[in-house]
């Protein structure tokens, strides 16, 4: 067992766990943050996507000991009702979710992507950015539309004005 400190969703946290436990399991079991999901467990589906220092990664392949002193953001940290992020609002408005299992991972990936762009991305650019996130129920049309909607909202009403 090791004591591991990191910042999760803006708060300093300490967990005591085996260092080879996955970050995903630490988030879900030790910290009760259950938005990130385990699906394939090997980096193919993106359901477990979280941000580490603003970069999107698969938390099922990061070991707890490797997360020491890192800044982690999960879907809960992107936004929680009633303070939803513009991306989450857009997913609701566009009906871009069905069973919802993949949604937190996609929101996190979209967050990392939209933080880096200041124009409305094309469908092709969104497909590349979200290529690591699988959805098995809706198809991707509404997801792509929701990301574009979020981008246009971000541009027309910058965060300071919101």
């Amino acid at each position: 067992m090791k004591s591991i400190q990191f910042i999760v969703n803006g708060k300093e946290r300490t967990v005591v766990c085996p260092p080879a436990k996955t970050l995903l399991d630490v988030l879900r079991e030790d910290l009760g943050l259950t938005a990130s999901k385990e699906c394939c467990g090997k980096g193919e589906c993106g359901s477990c996507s979280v941000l580490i220092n603003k970069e999107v990664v698969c938390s099922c392949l990061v070991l707890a000991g490797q997360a020491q002193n890192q800044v982690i953001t999960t879907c809960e940290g992107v936004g929680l009702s009633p303070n939803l992020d513009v991306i989450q609002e857009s997913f609701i408005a566009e009906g871009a979710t069905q069973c919802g299992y993949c949604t937190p991972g996609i929101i996190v990936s979209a967050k990392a992507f939209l933080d880096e762009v200041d124009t409305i991305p094309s469908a092709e650019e969104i497909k590349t950015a979200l290529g690591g996130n699988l959805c098995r129920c809706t198809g991707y049309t509404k997801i792509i539309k929701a990301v574009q909607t979020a981008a246009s909202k971000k541009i027309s009403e910058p965060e300071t004005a919101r």
Partner: protein
Amino acid sequence: MLVSQIDMITPSSLSECLNQLSKAGRKHKLIAGGTDAAVRMKEGKWRPEIWINIKNLKELRYIEEREDFIHIGPLTTHTDMIQSQLLQRKADVLVEAAREVGATQMQNMGTIGGNIGTASPAGDTLPALYVLGAMLELTSLTNKRTLPIEEFFTGPGRTVLKENEMITKILIKPQKPNGLGIFQKLGPRKAQSISIVNVAISLTMDNDRKCAEGKIAFGSVAPTIIRARKCESMLTLGQLNEELIQNIAKIAWKEVMPISDGRATATYRRDMASALLERGLYRLIRRWENQ
């Protein structure tokens, strides 16, 4: 060994890391991005007593041009390579290959040193490194050696790396102004897939559609990456016109030595190796002429 019993050490410098690697009488393994290592741990294939975590060893993460080589730190991620203007200008084939690795998450996590160390015959950056004449620096606490990438791999997942050594640098030759490269991959889908066949091509062009020198390396068609030397020798025979390109592609069909496995049959791989090379050469010529 259970996952919960595995310990972890995080060295804060390269020398500390080499010191840890030199300790005998225990089972340890390096872990960087974890995109392969963590999966193998879960599958039960890799259960070291201790993970030596080098993920944040910043001194091994850089891309620099010094003297006649581009120096790449082994902990450089695929995203770093995709965004590097130096590589975009002078090693475009490596940037294209890095872009084909997994998707955003894998590109953010996975490192070039890891892609080399894993030694998959399907590793996407490897053929690109072959055509860029890559040299690998391997370091242990007491020794340092540099060898061509061709001499590093001995089979699928097998390399000449010793227990106490690690890859500490990748050296590549920058392309000349009249040089250009391309990476072509066939996978089951666009993002996030293992290559069925991949090929890297690097050409140094002369006047009049002639090629002064060229290198071709295939992945996923042999136990390790292979250079297609017969095809390479044909590149300089004359103008790279449709006829010559098609003849080179025919020779590629014979030169690769694929097996049948869950991803594809050997014959399909031969067909695709030939087609990817032909397509790659056409695209390179078009790029060269539009420059």
